């Protein structure tokens, strides 16, 4: 049954091709059937393959399927080959399963859109590219998927292209991720130069013997790969594109900018973990990038008023947690948090999309309010997602995954108290901004009337995702209660387990502190925004707070900084070089030719005599030369 693997990416590709070729002539119903059907079938195949993979694990923990040779140039012959191990199994499960739920939701959400088939074509192409990314057995094929998801992200952010701001956001996302991609390409060149192969299993097998631990080449390569991951996963300092990417439709934000594409960086680092383990510096930088990002984005999320921007900053922050986990060597914890995050963040985005749609495209949370009774299904599912995001103890998936990261940030041999403290503060802010979002959106007075309620196509995916946002956590329990390690056992075939420096017996103290962070954040915001709102009003009036508010609201001024450092000098250079210096040379050639032409055309008088004289003189000269030489 494993040989059905090729069907998983092939089905979305087929869906994409059908929709591109014939989408304009199909009815909306058929378009939805093709778009949703291809992904759902892929999900079914994934479950069959996954079941087969788990019941009879292949030798060496990975199943490889070579489809054909991509090209063959002077010994460089990358294959179109898929490889399935437990890490990619987790990813393809999340991609196809959550992907199909989001597609079902989109069938309802986009029903009134005139570009229905274009939407599903792009979504199918995205799922195909993402599956290629995680199933590729060599880095070149993975890079193909990597660029493919970037392209689809661009196409879907700018989906409503009539508004120039959306096109601008799409361009921004494309250009900024391209910076990371360039670094990653350089990393691939280095790897090929050093290993002579791009097949991942060969690289990971030979890297420890080829490179010495902590050698500079290992560090540089790991950092180049990290830069690629930073661009795709919106980590500091390449995070500025993600909040703007919310210009796309909500299902796009849920699928691409929450559940799957933005975690490609996490996948890359987890996949190449051997290279990172060879360089302590690189791994420390991964942890620091994650830690700083999760705090910066967390504080920014606290001040947003657009509900989708809150979720965008929250996504950046949660991926920061994953990077932190990768950095401290808690590989399985990162992937666990990826899976939990995919469930609850997709849920939150879809629910937010339902709210925005119902309120007539109202994004501002300050104009929502009082939706608790008006949209009960959305409220309850959103509440479950929010509980998971803020890591509400015991009952949410987010708790189990984040608690693990917090614990490893302290207890791993690469962890440190400072990293733990940032993660702890991050947990506090996460709870705070999530509660703020809940209160502003669902409690209080109603400020905008509801247009139409979401249909069944939209609510059922919400309920399914809410279910998984709770139970996904139970497959991995901390060892002091339950000690159930299904998930990490599954992944230990690919990813090494974490080396601990601290004693496991102290874990309950940290769990207690995580409780405190979550409830502290919830309580504080509850007081300020709900019980005694005058306090927040008073706070708003102080100038220092206003400055801080604006600073956080603008994403810590990164946009302005990049504007100042990169955009302004570039525009200035372009302006002073309006008449291109390089062009001068070519203009010179053109003008010399032009002058010569004028000179010679003056001899074309039309007088036959002149021509004959010319011929005679020419003949005399040639004869004269003949005689003289």
């Amino acid at each position: 049954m494993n040989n059905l693997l090729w069907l998983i990416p092939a089905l979305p590709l087929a869906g994409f091709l059908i929709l591109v070729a014939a989408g304009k002539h199909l009815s909306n119903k058929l378009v939805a059937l093709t778009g949703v059907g291809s992904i759902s079938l892929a999900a079914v195949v994934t479950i069959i393959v996954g079941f087969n993979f788990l019941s009879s694990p292949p030798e060496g923990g990975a199943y490889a399927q070579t489809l054909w040779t991509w090209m063959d140039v002077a010994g460089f012959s990358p294959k179109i080959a898929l490889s399935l191990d437990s890490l990619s199994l987790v990813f393809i499960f999340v991609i196809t399963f959550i992907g199909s739920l989001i597609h079902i939701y989109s069938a309802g959400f986009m029903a009134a859109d005139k570009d229905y088939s274009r939407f599903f074509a792009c979504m199918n192409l995205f799922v195909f590219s993402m599956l290629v990314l995680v199933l590729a057995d060599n880095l070149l094929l993975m890079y193909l998927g990597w660029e493919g998801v970037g392209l689809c992200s661009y196409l879907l952010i700018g989906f409503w292209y009539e508004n120039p701001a959306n096109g601008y956001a799409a361009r921004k996302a494309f250009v900024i991720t391209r910076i990371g991609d360039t670094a990653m390409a350089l990393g691939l060149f280095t790897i090929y130069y050093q290993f002579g192969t791009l097949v991942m299993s060969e690289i990971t097998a030979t890297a420890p013997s080829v490179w010495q631990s902590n050698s500079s080449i290992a560090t540089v390569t790991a950092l180049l790969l990290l830069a690629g991951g930073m661009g795709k996963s919106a980590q500091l300092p390449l995070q500025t594109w993600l909040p703007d990417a919310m210009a796309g439709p909500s299902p796009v934000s849920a699928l691409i900018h929450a559940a799957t594409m933005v975690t490609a960086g996490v996948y890359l680092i987890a996949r190449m973990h051997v290279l990172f383990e060879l360089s302590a510096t690189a791994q420390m930088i991964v942890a620091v990038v994650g830690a700083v990002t999760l705090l910066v984005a967390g504080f920014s999320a606290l001040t947003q008023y657009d509900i989708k921007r809150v979720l965008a900053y929250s996504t950046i922050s949660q991926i920061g947690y994953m990077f932190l986990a990768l950095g401290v060597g808690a590989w399985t914890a990162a992937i666990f948090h990826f899976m939990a995050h995919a469930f609850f963040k997709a849920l939150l985005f879809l629910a937010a999309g339902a709210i925005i749609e119902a309120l007539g495209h109202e994004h501002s949370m300050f104009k929502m309010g009082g939706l608790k009774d008006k949209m009960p299904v959305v409220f309850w599912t959103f509440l479950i997602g929010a509980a998971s995001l803020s890591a509400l103890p015991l009952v949410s998936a987010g708790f189990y995954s984040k608690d693990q990261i917090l614990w490893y940030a302290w207890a791993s041999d690469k962890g440190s108290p400072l990293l733990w403290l940032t993660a702890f503060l991050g947990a506090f802010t996460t709870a705070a901004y999530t509660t703020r979002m809940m209160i502003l959106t669902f409690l209080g007075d109603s400020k905008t009337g509801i247009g139409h309620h979401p249909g069944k196509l939209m609510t059922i995916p919400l309920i399914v995702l809410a279910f998984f946002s709770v139970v996904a956590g139970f497959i991995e329990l901390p060892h002091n209660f339950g000690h159930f390690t299904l998930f990490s056992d599954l992944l230990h075939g690919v990813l090494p387990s974490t080396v601990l420096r601290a004693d496991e017996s102290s874990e309950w103290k940290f769990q207690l502190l995580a409780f405190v962070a979550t409830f502290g954040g919830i309580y504080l915001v509850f007081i300020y925004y709900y019980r005694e709102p005058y306090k927040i009003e008073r706070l708003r009036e102080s100038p220092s707070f206003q400055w801080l508010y604006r600073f956080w609201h603008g994403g810590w001024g990164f946009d302005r900084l990049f504007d100042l450092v990169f955009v302004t000098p570039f525009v200035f250079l372009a302006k002073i070089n309006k008449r291109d210096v390089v062009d001068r040379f070519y203009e010179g050639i053109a003008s010399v030719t032009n002058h010569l032409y004028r000179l010679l055309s003056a001899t074309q008088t039309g007088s036959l005599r002149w021509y004959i004289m010319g011929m005679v003189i020419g003949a005399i000269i040639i004869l004269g030369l003949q005689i003289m030489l």
Partner: protein
Amino acid sequence: MNSSVSTEIVMLLAGLLFVLGITGVVIRKNIIFMLLSVEIMLNASGLAFIAAGARWGQPDGQVMFIFILAMAAAEVSIGLALILQIYHQHKSLDIDKLREMNG
């Protein structure tokens, strides 16, 4: 065959005729006279071929002359046809009035 006239003299005559022809082409205004001058040039080169053929005792010179003769006949017939057309269109045979194809 012993020639009574030396080859140099004949070549000189041919050269003279050729220069006369060229001069005619250059200075004449009337196209018919220019065509005549071209004929003179052709015959001058024909004479040179004959003389050279006689000098070396080879038939090639006479072959070339017959070739030039045939070519000249063709050239004259085409040239005269063109001149006829030019006269029909422009009512003039003055080469200086026919300078339309300038740069």
